[in-house]
Structures are given as C-alpha cells and as structure tokens.
C-alpha cells in the first residue's frame, strides 16, 4: 500500500504543534533589549557634616563673651584649621573617585559609558 496522504491539519495535529509551539509570544518588549548608556542616579549617603565639635565650642565661647571675637581667638583659629583640613580631605578624596566604597559614583560611571556607548545598529 502506498504512503497514505493525510490532509495537512492531520499531520499538524499529530505533531503537537497546536499544543506547544503555536502560541502568541510570551515576551513583547516595549523598548529594545539592549543596555542603556547611563545608570540610575544613586544618592551617596556618604559624608556627615565636618567640624561640628569645633563649631559648637566656638559658639559656646561666643555665648560667654557676648559674641566678641578677641577673647575667642583660640577657638576661632581651631575652627579655621579644622575647616582647612576638611577641605583638603575633600579635594583629595574627589580625585580617588571613592574606590574604597566598592562602586564608582553614578556621575563618573555615566561619563565613562558615554565614551563607550552600546552599538545598537550596524551601518
């Protein structure tokens, strides 16, 4: 007997195409599935206010001496020294880009990514 010629729907039904494969796609991406050239802005909960103790000492001295500067010269000098030191620390820290914390700050990451963007199309 020759090979029986079944209609097309029979072969398709037998193969199980209707059951598994012919389904609407489970994923319909609204944007292209590619990495963007920026990261989200992350607020660094890094530093607290510096020189608070010196400032409070100076203010206590002010309160005692009716806000005259001459009796409080020593405390004012200490406050200025602390401020200068904190400023230098901040300048030095800015250059290292906070590698000690583990991650770069988001602004620097964005700058780097802008230099090496994701290629989405080939011309």
């Amino acid at each position, binding site marked *: 007997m020759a090979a029986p010629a079944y209609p097309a729907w029979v072969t398709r039904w037998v193969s199980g195409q209707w059951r598994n494969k012919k389904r609407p796609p489970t994923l319909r991406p609204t944007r292209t599935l590619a990495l963007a050239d920026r990261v989200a802005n992350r607020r660094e909960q890094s*530093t*607290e*206010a*510096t020189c*608070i103790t010196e*400032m*409070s000492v*100076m*203010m206590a001295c002010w309160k005692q001496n009716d806000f005259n500067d001459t009796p409080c010269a020593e405390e004012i000098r200490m406050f200025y020294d602390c401020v200068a030191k*904190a400023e230098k620390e901040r300048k030095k820290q800015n250059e290292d880009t906070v590698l000690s914390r583990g991650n770069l700050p988001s602004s620097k990451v964005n700058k780097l990514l802008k230099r090496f963007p994701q290629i989405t199309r080939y011309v």
Partner: protein
Amino acid sequence: MAAPSAAGLGRRLRAWLPRIMPVRWSRYNPSYLEPEAKKESYQKPLEELTEEEREHMELKAVRPIKAAPPSLSSSVFSDPMISKFTNMMMKSGNKVLARSLMSQTLEAIKRKQLEKYHKAPENEKETIECNPYVIFHQALKNCQPIIGLSNITKGGKTYQVPIPLTDNRKRFLAMKWLIAECRENKHRRTLMPEKLSQELLLAFNNEGPVIKKKHVLHKMAEANRAYAHFRWW
C-alpha cells in the same frame, strides 16, 4: 625631568589654535605664560635663582606670554584688597570715579586720625593709628563673618544651616556690607568718602552698624546650630 616632546606639544597646540587669535582676552592657548609684574624678580642676579626659577626663565624664552591686564601693577602702592574694594564701588565701569573716591576716603581717614593725634595727650599718642591702609585692612578683618548661613532643603522644608565660609566669600561679604551700609543708611547729601571713612573708623574700633550686622549673623548661626548636621560636606 625631561621636557615634553616638542613634536607632540606642537601638534596639540596647533590643534587648539582658534581661528581668531586672541590678544587681550581671557581665553588663551594653554602654552601662554602669566606676566610677571614684580620688579624684584628681575633684579635678582643669575646665581641666586633656584632650580625651578632657572627653568621658568628658560621656559619664558620660548613660550609666548599673556597680555598684562590693566589691574596688574608693579607699583609699591598697589594693594589687591584696595583694588577689589574700588572695583566693588565702581558703577557702570566708571573706574576713574571709583578710584578717586577711594583715594579721597583714605585721605579723609588720615585727616581724622591726624586731628585725633594732635589733640591727644602725650601718653596716648602712640596708640593712635594714622596709616589709612592699616586701618582699612583691620576694619575689613573685623567685619568679616566667621560662619555663614545657607538654605538647605530637607523633607520639603528649607532650613538656615550654619556653614563655614571660604576666605573669598568672607572678604566679599565684608566689602559688600560696608558699601551697602554707606549707600543706603546714610543721609542723602553726604559724600561717599566721608561716609566710608566714618564707617571704616567705626569698624576699626569694633563698633558701628557693620559689626552689628556681623554679630546678628553669628547670633542666627548660633541659634540654628542644631541644624548643623544637615550639612553633607
């Protein structure tokens, strides 16, 4: 320390050259050096110079030099603080008027102090300061605030937070307060040198409305010291 390669530098400099070559602008090619105004640096004999100064002199022979701005002076009488104060007093670019007002102010200070000097008894004559420049600098120093307030928004509300000020900001505030005080809170027909000399002498003695303004700022900072933790620098 080898000098940077001439070829690489030349290529970079040529790439930077704008179409119009600036002569007296503030944007110069990075190769331009600053002009040297002090006469003492040119009178030093060659042997006394340190290594860096010798290298700097050799560099000046090959590099172009920026045009000197009109405010740069090699005179012994020029004072950067006085120039800055004159510029702040200037209105609509009338530097001639501002400079004459400044010199009249210094003269008025000198006259007042000399009058006090000649009227004072012998033992007090040394305590009276007659140099108007010294009085100007001391008065400005007395007027400078030590701590300032800045607006910081947190949780929808703005707070006045005490912050340390930079030197430039302190100088600017002192000068601005002095000038504003003279312009606004005096009788209409008094001339600026008279008002300014009076204010400077009061500030020199730690009295007067400008010092009071500084104290008011300090008091507000002291009252708001609880918010000092809102700073993040």
